[in-house]
């Protein structure tokens, strides 16, 4: 009498191996499909947009006529907004991260703040727009200004920057801090001169990722009421302005087909800006990354 039914096992093994190969092919093709989708999107972006892209497109204001429309006001507006968002969001974000990682005791208050941050990261951007509309635009009377939009965006990207900075600070080894204390440095001296420089690549990378989110976000700007028909450049933080994604939104909505190409050209400008920022982030990570 045999305990092992070799034929049955061979049959079973064949089935199992076939199923293994089948699903491996399936999973691999799913991954390839995802990559193809990305390539198709990028390809469409370039082919649709490159027709209207020119030096004039970068230097003209928006217009009712597709051939005269340009991104000038939006491009400068977005950069002006970023010029406020960057110092505000990065200083508060990194400050909060230092507090949570280096000073905060493990108590209820700290875990409440931490929970708050991760909840804020999940709040839809349009809700931040409602907050900005009520608090900045109406209550504080900033109007539809660069400042109101920039502060709203800063609050929106704050959780991204805090979490990235926290991770960067956490990854600085304790031995570095102890060496600094051993040399007689105080806590703040240690943080300022040892921990922060060591964590800087991670902090910068996270900050740039947050800032590139601020550049592309449209919904909060729409809710705040940022106008699109603007024929001047912002001349101060209280000036009205328009932003790149607002122009794209406006053009994409227009019924004339030509404006689709204008919108696509605007998207190309936006994506170039984003790629530029992300390449800087990648470069920083490679150039300054320390291994301890």
């Amino acid at each position, binding site marked *: 009498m045999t305990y092992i039914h070799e034929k049955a096992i061979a049959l079973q093994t064949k089935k199992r191996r076939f199923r293994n190969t089948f699903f491996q092919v399936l999973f691999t093709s799913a991954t390839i499909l995802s990559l193809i989708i990305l390539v198709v999107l990028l390809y469409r972006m370039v082919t649709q947009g490159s027709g209207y892209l020119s030096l004039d497109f970068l230097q003209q204001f928006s217009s009712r006529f597709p051939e005269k429309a340009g991104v000038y006001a939006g491009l400068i507006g977005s950069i002006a907004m970023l010029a406020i968002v960057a110092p505000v969001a990065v200083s508060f974000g990194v400050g909060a991260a230092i507090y949570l990682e280096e000073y905060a005791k493990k108590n209820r208050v700290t875990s409440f703040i931490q929970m708050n941050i991760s909840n804020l990261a999940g709040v*839809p951007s349009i809700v931040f727009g409602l907050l900005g509309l009520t608090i900045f635009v109406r209550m504080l009377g900033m109007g539809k200004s660069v400042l109101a939009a920039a502060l709203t965006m800063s609050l929106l990207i704050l959780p991204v920057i805090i979490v990235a900075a926290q991770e960067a600070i956490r990854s600085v080894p304790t031995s570095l801090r102890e060496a600094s204390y051993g040399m007689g440095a105080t806590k703040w001296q240690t943080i300022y001169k040892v921990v922060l420089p060591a964590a800087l690549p991670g902090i910068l990378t996270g900050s740039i990722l947050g800032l590139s989110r601020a550049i592309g976000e449209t919904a909060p700007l729409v809710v705040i009421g940022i106008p699109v028909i603007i024929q001047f450049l912002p001349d101060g933080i209280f000036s009205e302005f328009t932003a790149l994604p607002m122009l794209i939104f406006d053009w994409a909505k227009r019924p004339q087909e030509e404006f689709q190409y204008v919108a696509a050209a605007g998207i190309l400008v936006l994506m170039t800006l984003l790629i530029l920022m992300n390449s800087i982030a990648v470069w920083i990570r490679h150039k300054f990354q320390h291994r301890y």
Partner: protein
Amino acid sequence: MVSQKPSTPLNVQQLIAQQQKKRRLRRLEKGVPALLFIAALISVLTTIGIIGTLIFETIEFFSRVSIVEYVTAREWLPFAGEPVYGILPLVVGTLKVTAIALVVALPLGLAVALYLSEFASDRVRTIVKPVLEVLAGIPTIVYGFFALTFVTPLLQQIVPQIQIFNAISPGIMIGIMILPTIASLSEDALSSVPKSLREGAFGLGATKLEVAMKVVLPAALSGVVASVVLAISRAIGETMIVSLAGGSTPLLNFDVAQSIQTMTAYIVQVSTGDAGYGTTIYYSIYAVGFTLFLFTFGMNILARWISKRFREAYE
């Protein structure tokens, strides 16, 4: 090189200067944490600001429109002569788009995650994962533009009955948008399952697929489910894709070929229109925003609870 000074005892002025420097340092040591604490409090203030704003303006809205009508009415007609404010059509619009997005993103995202964590080589994984995360970095306005100008015409060629504005095209686009959320976070969860578990299963003669489906996936299930719930929350809150490609017709049905309106798209419609400050329509966007906030907040809490409650610890 440090210059060699004759070792004279400190005079009084130097002593005073030294004391002052020490005092300044001490003040800095005490002042800095307080300042940083304020920075950390900003996030709490933001939450209070959001909830306060939404509740305050929503109460104003419900002083004009009955809350019973808001929850039970089957029509959303704020611009009609006799306005009706029933949130159901907007909720249904949102859920339709979210469901379609999940149909796209769930199988694709899980397959990608399983491939990257169980089948791919380290080299492939380190290249493919960041490339796919590029999808998460593309602004949603760009996805909206593609939904309107690329996916919708493509779908219309296949099924001519599909309208210019519909639920299926933005749904597919949102699915592509949340794909990296599911793929990347699930992959993290799958890879963190200890190697010993896999090796144990391989030692018993399991195939790669059996290890993946019967050992790794169950062990990482809490992380995988949490990633899916987070993705759903992002899909519900997504705005620009549905504003551009979904239309502005709030309807209480389950037809995906027709024009729809989601909660977020309604807020955009009012914001870009000319409803004045202080009108009932103006306050309605806060009520809708509050409803939206409750949905996403619930999803986020659920995701955290799942990943905490059902986490399998192996260390």
